[in-house]
């Protein structure tokens, strides 16, 4: 089924998302216990990750060229991307399976705005957003410990690479879930989850040849390792250009795949 293209300005989409956000807050107001539990979970996640890194490092100060503080930074960046991803679009795209199987995707196509936008952002999950605080804690820890060595320019560029990493993170999810429209229950998002889980650790652990792949053909390094290296000040700022190009290309390709796969969608249920 070919979808009609709707030309709407960015302002319109921001307004739609604000309404979604408002509704989400209203629904979470009912489940206050859930919010409290998510806060407890956030603390637990930080403690476990802290303990895990202690075990990995043992008595040593460095692991594959990364100090403990730097490893916390990589894990923190991953937490930010992962849990913000779940909060903004991850759960929505995961539920796309069910939406397609029971025929509710018809309603998404019929709405006068981009189906990719609506399928990705039709709900906001505050609970996952709360868990993203674990990332803020770990990154914040790095900022506190390394405050004297941080350069303002690196921090600003780091923010830019984080935005690019988040766009790439979203594009990967969108591209994978677009195949749900053609073939539901394909498990691609499970695979993506495992692949992106690899970025929880610095790419240096994988040796030179695999690391080369992560910097070129399959650029997973741009998600956590490169942003971390930029903040540390270990690599040239020219990598930011690579991040921006990658974000634009990946978003373009993901949208292209989405549009291609929407054509293969056939309604079911009813």
């Amino acid at each position, binding site marked *: 089924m070919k979808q009609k293209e709707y030309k709407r300005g960015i302002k319109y989409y921001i307004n739609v998302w604000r309404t979604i956000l408002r509704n989400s807050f209203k629904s979470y107001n009912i489940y206050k216990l859930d919010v409290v539990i998510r806060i407890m979970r956030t603390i637990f996640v930080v403690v476990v990750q802290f303990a895990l890194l202690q075990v990995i490092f043992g008595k040593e100060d460095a692991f594959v060229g990364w100090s403990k503080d730097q490893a916390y930074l990589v894990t923190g960046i991953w937490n930010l991307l992962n849990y913000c991803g779940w909060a903004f679009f991850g759960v929505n795209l995961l539920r796309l399976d069910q939406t397609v199987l029971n025929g509710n995707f018809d309603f998404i196509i019929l709405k006068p705005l981009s189906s990719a936008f609506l399928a990705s952002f039709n709900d906001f999950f505050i609970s996952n957003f709360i868990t993203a605080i674990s990332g803020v804690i770990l990154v914040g820890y790095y900022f506190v410990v390394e405050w004297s060595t941080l350069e303002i320019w690196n921090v600003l560029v780091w923010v830019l690479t984080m935005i690019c990493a988040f766009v790439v993170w979203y594009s990967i999810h969108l591209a994978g879930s677009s195949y749900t429209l053609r073939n539901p229950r394909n*498990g691609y998002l499970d695979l993506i989850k495992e692949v992106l889980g*690899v970025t929880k650790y610095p790419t240096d652990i994988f040796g030179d040849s695999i690391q080369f792949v992560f910097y070129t053909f399959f650029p997973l390094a741009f998600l956590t390792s490169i942003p971390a290296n930029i903040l540390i000040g270990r690599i040239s700022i020219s990598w930011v250009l690579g991040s921006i190009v990658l974000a634009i290309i990946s978003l373009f390709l993901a949208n292209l795949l989405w549009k291609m796969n929407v054509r293969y969608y056939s309604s079911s249920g009813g």
Partner: protein
Amino acid sequence: MMKELKKAQKILNKEVQLYFKKELQYRNLIIVRTISDIVKIVAISFVWLMASKSTNNISQGYIVTYYILATFMGRLMSDYTVYQGPQDIISGNFSKFIVKPFNYLIEYLGVNIGFNSIRFILSLPAFIFGIFLVGNYWVLEFNPYNIFVSLIAIILGFTINFLLGNIFTLGAFFTKQMDGIRTFYFNIASFFSGEYIPLIFMSFNMRFASEILPFRYTLSFPMELLIGKIEDVDVERGFVISIIWIVVLFVSYKLLYKKSLKKYEAEGI
């Protein structure tokens, strides 16, 4: 009594068959899940091989073997009810279980056996690939006695997990939002089961807590038995604690179920 058991066995077999048929409809899913398992094993192997090489204070073989085994054996003891059960109660689907002429636990058990069997078979290629990948660091020797005791521990571990999952599910009678609670429950259970960090790396107090709590017996204990790095006294104590937990959880489930059912609102009817 025998007649009842035979009937339950028949229903259970049917449920497992049904689950297999349902899952085998999605062939792509099977292939993709196998690849997912391989990715997971590769990542784990690299991290722990590197950790062992750079720190030199961990027995390389033990830690690498432990994590590969954890990914593999976890498949046999996982519980699916914690996902499906609360959803059934909240959506009102639970009503169908109340009117059926057999206990709903048989249906959930069938789904769990089907789910675990498929996931176990699918993770076999990843497991073999993992052994190949870590090469000399693989320390497990397949000893018949260890395999036998470990199999018993796996059955007990699955029973504990299944009962825990069903007790957890009863919470959905009291609150309609279980996602956060479930995720937190998973984190706690995974931590104390040794899935995140092997128990040997925990402090004395944490290790003691994990030995008392039921979670260790749903993953770490069967693995310790299989690897064989456990004293005879600890083996006996482990089995005794497992059985005590099964009794405690079963009685708790029975009592809680009676109380919880009174809260059921049968939404959607």
